[in-house]
């Protein structure tokens, strides 16, 4: 016989084992050593917190009362897991991308980081979970009571309330130790998860062991079981074992919804998830686990009904059957299975609830009381840890109080259903938030509150019975006698099971309120942004193993930085920082160092305050809307681009302006020159005309007896007429040259001969001006093939210029000939004062003449003609500065000269 002390000792040993497992797993995780901890197997087993004491003990009771209906409790989660690719994957991806810490945080985050929603969901979760925790305490107490029954020997402490208190205290200790050891940003608890995985195995093994004992040890194999089933069905009250469609659909939906929305399920499914690989494996492994858990439920139920005395509580068949057949070891194992189920649920649920309570209720309150110290000093972590621990204790105290209040009178399954329905109210807002961008914060709040009220009114409050908050008359006749408001028959819908009735009305009204208010309310910018990120999470995030939350934030930061600093600069910064951290790609971890560096960089673009606000916004917590900041960033970026473009343009403009200014200056000079030329040409034409007219009038008037004088007058007329002709010839020549209509007559000639001709043509001027010409005849013996008449014309001009404009006392002109790089060079250098620098660029322009010296006899067309001629010949004429006197260089490429023999 098992003594109470033995039972307690085994329990203590088991608990110590769990402590060791959790401790070892935490240490191993801290060293990042154990890959096993992140394996899909551990994840799958941790999901078994779904199977609480309710499923461990209660499923058999459920089957004993209602036949196969208990299967709905397993069917819902199975459907969710099988359809994981469609919804669960999205939920997990969002949870990781947004660093979601709880289901309350998920809704708060989705709807514009609204803490109101966080508070509502937290309250719903606490109220919905408290009965469930009480249920676990009750199950452990009941289990103890089973052992205590009939065995007075050794059972000196059968105080059940005290047992529950001890269990609650122990669970609080364990949860605080392993649930709040550290404040991991991702809220992951390797120790707890591993301990729960161990418990999952114990549960399964225990139930399978009892099942195998029942089928082959008591029931006489499958055939005997089938017989027992028949017997049980006949013995059951009318319709109790029959399958009704409405209830099946309703309960399956309820269990599926609860699987997603129960705080502890959300915690193990999403928060503790370490990658989608885990999810993929769990999608088939967890349904398998559920299948095994449910495999022997019916056999145990029917064998219990058939073999145990009437009136035995079917919820405890798992324990009472082995005890009935004196299988103490098996009973012990079964007890540990139920104990595991209860403890794992309480531990995870209290961690999840404590996270929500401390994050959404305690911390906001505390921060509003002492806002300044909180942000300045580093003691937020300590406060948060204390808040967690207090919340865990608070949750367990609530559960214990509920246990004491309810008096343990209600069937286990009923309490489970009440909890399920309560937390399922979160489903519309959660699913809507993930699938529908139009979902708004107000809609979510309206749906949650509506659903919660309907649930409380139709299911939760009536569950307390007459002793509770609702009087028997209210339940029977409705408030103020309004029959259509009867809590269990709303709007005149009667004949439904209370749970199905509550699920139906709460979910319907919840969804209506959610969709309706969403449609008429306008979400804020942050809400829209978050909505887009949630709904489209599969489009723009990539599955990675761990660290995705950080990466998602880093990506947001990169987007922001690109808009602020420009794409290249931002990408370079991020890549450099990432590689400094030893990471590939563009997304570094958001370490304090990196954030400080980024803020500094951003400050350079938008100023420190804005940079801080931007980063604060992306890291979470600021009140400026992201859209606004994005707009600011866009503007800044545009301004930066614009100003850099402006700078480039400015440089370009400066260059252009300089060029324009030079051109303008030249044009102005040319314009002035042109005006001057008009005067000049007038002068040049009128001057000879004056002489011609004057002397022709003299001759016409007659009376000149001196024949010699008359002849002299006539010769002046002749000379001036020639001068006019020359001027006209020059103008025409220039015009022809300028318009490219010139006919060239290339011929082969020795350079010296050409120069000889030029000197000869200017001989009279040379003599008159007493110009001495120095030549190196030996160097001039170069055969050239070009239009030598035109070349001579250039030479004549240069020699005449030296003669006319040379201002030295003894005028001298040196003609130097050379060849360099296949180019013939002929320099004409005189010993005059030369041409002023400012005039050097102008002298080849038409109409330019530096002096008014009428004796020069030209209109300033000579050098302009020279330039045009050399251009036509393929050469050039330039002014050669720095030669003391006026110096002109005529160049002519020799390669272009065709060699003819």
């Amino acid at each position, binding site marked *: 016989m098992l003594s109470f002390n033995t039972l307690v000792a085994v329990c203590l040993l088991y608990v110590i084992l769990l402590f060791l497992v959790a401790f070892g797993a935490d240490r191993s995780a801290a060293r990042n050593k154990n890959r096993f901890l992140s394996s899909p197997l551990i994840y799958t087993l941790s999901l078994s917190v779904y199977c609480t004491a309710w499923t461990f003990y209660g499923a058999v009771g459920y089957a004993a009362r209602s036949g196969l209906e208990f299967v709905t409790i397993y069917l819902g989660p199975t459907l969710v897991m099988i359809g994981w690719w469609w919804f669960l994957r999205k939920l997990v991806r969002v949870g990781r991308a947004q660093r979601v810490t709880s289901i309350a945080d998920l809704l708060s985050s989705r709807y514009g980081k609204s803490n109101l929603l966080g508070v509502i969901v937290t309250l719903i979760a606490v109220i919905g979970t408290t009965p469930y925790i009480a249920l676990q305490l009750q199950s452990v107490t009941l289990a103890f009571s089973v052992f205590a029954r009939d065995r007075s020997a050794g059972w000196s402490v059968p105080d059940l309330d005290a047992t529950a208190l001890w269990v609650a205290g122990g669970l609080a200790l364990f949860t605080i130790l392993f649930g709040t050891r550290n404040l991991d940003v991702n809220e992951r608890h390797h120790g707890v998860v591993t301990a729960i995985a161990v418990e999952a195995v114990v549960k399964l093994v225990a139930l399978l062991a009892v099942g195998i004992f029942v089928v082959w040890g008591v029931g006489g194999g499958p055939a005997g079981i089938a017989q027992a089933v028949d017997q049980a069905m006949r013995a059951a009250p009318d319709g109790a074992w029959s399958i009704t469609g409405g209830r099946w659909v309703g309960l399956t939906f309820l269990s599926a919804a609860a699987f997603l929305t129960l705080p502890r399920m959300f915690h193990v499914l999403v928060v503790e998830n370490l990658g989608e690989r885990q999810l993929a494996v769990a999608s088939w492994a967890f349904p398998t686990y559920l299948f095994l858990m449910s495999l022997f439920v019916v056999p145990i139920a029917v064998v219990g009904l058939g073999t145990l005395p009437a009136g035995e509580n079917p919820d405890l068949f798992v324990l009472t059957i082995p005890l009935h057949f004196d299988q103490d070891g098996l009973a012990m194992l079964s007890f540990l299975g139920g104990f595991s189920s209860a403890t794992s649920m309480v531990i995870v649920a209290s961690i999840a609830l404590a996270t929500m309570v401390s994050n959404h209720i305690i911390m906001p309150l505390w921060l509003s009381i002492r806002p300044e110290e909180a942000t300045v000093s580093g003691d937020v972590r300590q406060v948060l840890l204390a808040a967690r621990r207090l919340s865990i204790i608070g949750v367990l105290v609530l559960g214990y109080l509920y246990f004491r209040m309810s008096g343990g009178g209600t069937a286990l399954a009923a309490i489970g259903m009440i909890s399920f329905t309560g937390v399922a109210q979160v489903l519309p807002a959660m699913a809507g938030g993930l699938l529908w961008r139009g979902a708004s914060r107000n809609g979510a709040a309206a749906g949650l509150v509506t659903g919660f009220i309907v649930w409380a009114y139709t299911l939760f409050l009536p569950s307390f019975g007459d002793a509770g908050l609702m009087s028997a008359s209210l339940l029977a006749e409705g408030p103020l006698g309004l029959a259509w408001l009867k809590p269990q028959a709303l709007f005149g819908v009667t004949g439904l099971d209370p749970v199905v009735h509550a699920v139906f009305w709460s979910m319907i009204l919840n969804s209506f309120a959610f969709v309706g208010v969403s449609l008429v309310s306008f979400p804020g910018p942050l809400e829209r942004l978050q909505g887009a990120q949630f709904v489209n999470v599969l489009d723009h995030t990539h599955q990675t193993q761990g660290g995705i939350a950080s990466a998602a934030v880093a990506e947001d930061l990169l987007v922001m930085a690109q808009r602020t600093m420009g794409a290249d600069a931002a990408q370079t910064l991020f890549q450099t920082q990432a590689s400094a951290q030893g990471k590939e790609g563009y997304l570094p971890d958001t370490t304090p160092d990196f954030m400080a560096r980024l803020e500094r960089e951003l400050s350079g673009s938008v100023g420190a305050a804005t940079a801080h606000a931007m980063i604060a916004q992306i890291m979470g917590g600021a009140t400026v809307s992201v859209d606004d900041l994005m707009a600011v960033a866009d503007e800044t970026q545009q301004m930066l681009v614009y100003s850099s473009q402006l700078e480039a343009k400015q440089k370009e403009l400066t260059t252009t302006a300089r060029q324009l200014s030079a051109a303008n200056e030249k044009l102005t000079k040319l314009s002035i020159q042109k005006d001057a030329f008009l005067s000049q040409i007038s002068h040049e034409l009128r001057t000879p005309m004056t002489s011609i007219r004057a002397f022709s009038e*003299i001759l016409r008037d007659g009376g000149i007896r001196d024949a010699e004088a008359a002849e002299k007058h006539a010769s002046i007329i002749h000379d001036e007429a020639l001068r006019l002709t020359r001027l006209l010839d020059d103008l025409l020549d220039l015009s022809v040259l300028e318009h490219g209509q010139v006919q060239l007559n290339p011929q082969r000639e020795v350079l010296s001969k050409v120069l000889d001709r030029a000197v000869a043509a200017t001989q009279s001027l040379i003599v008159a001006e007493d110009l001495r010409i120095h030549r190196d005849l030996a160097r001039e013996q170069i055969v050239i093939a070009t239009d030598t008449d035109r070349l001579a014309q250039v030479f004549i001009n240069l020699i005449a210029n030296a003669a006319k404009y040379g201002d030295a006392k003894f005028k001298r002109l040196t003609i130097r000939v050379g060849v360099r790089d296949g180019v013939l060079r002929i320099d004409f250098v005189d010993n005059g004062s030369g041409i002023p620098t400012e005039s050097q660029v102008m002298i080849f322009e038409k109409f330019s003449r530096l002096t008014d010296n009428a004796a020069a006899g030209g209109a300033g067309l000579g050098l302009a003609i020279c330039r045009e001629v050399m251009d036509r010949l393929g050469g050039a004429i330039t002014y050669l500065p720095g030669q003391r006197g006026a110096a002109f260089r005529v160049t002519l490429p020799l390669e272009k000269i065709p060699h003819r023999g």
Partner: protein
Amino acid sequence: MAKQVLVIEDEPNIVAAISFILSRDGWTVGTHANGETAVQAVLEAKPDALILDVMLPGRSGYDILQDLRAHELTRRLPVLMLTARGQRTDREQAERLGVNRFMTKPFSNAEVVETLNELVPG
């Protein structure tokens, strides 16, 4: 006593023509071809009238006229300006500076003689 005229002009053939027609009319003709020394030449020659070209080497006829009008001895000296640049602005400038007569080249011999005789009657 014959009336004396000074011709300041750099084109030798024009100087020859003016000298011929005025000598024939009984004027005593002096000539000067350089702009820079023209004012000095006028002050030295003390002519009864002056024929002044505009485009002269060294100094323009306008500058010379301005100097002459500023000088006590030549303030009222009758000046006939001859220019080969026929623009209106030239005439306006000359009149602003106090020219007595302004003629554009080529001129009529008779008109030059007539004008000078008007400027220096008797």
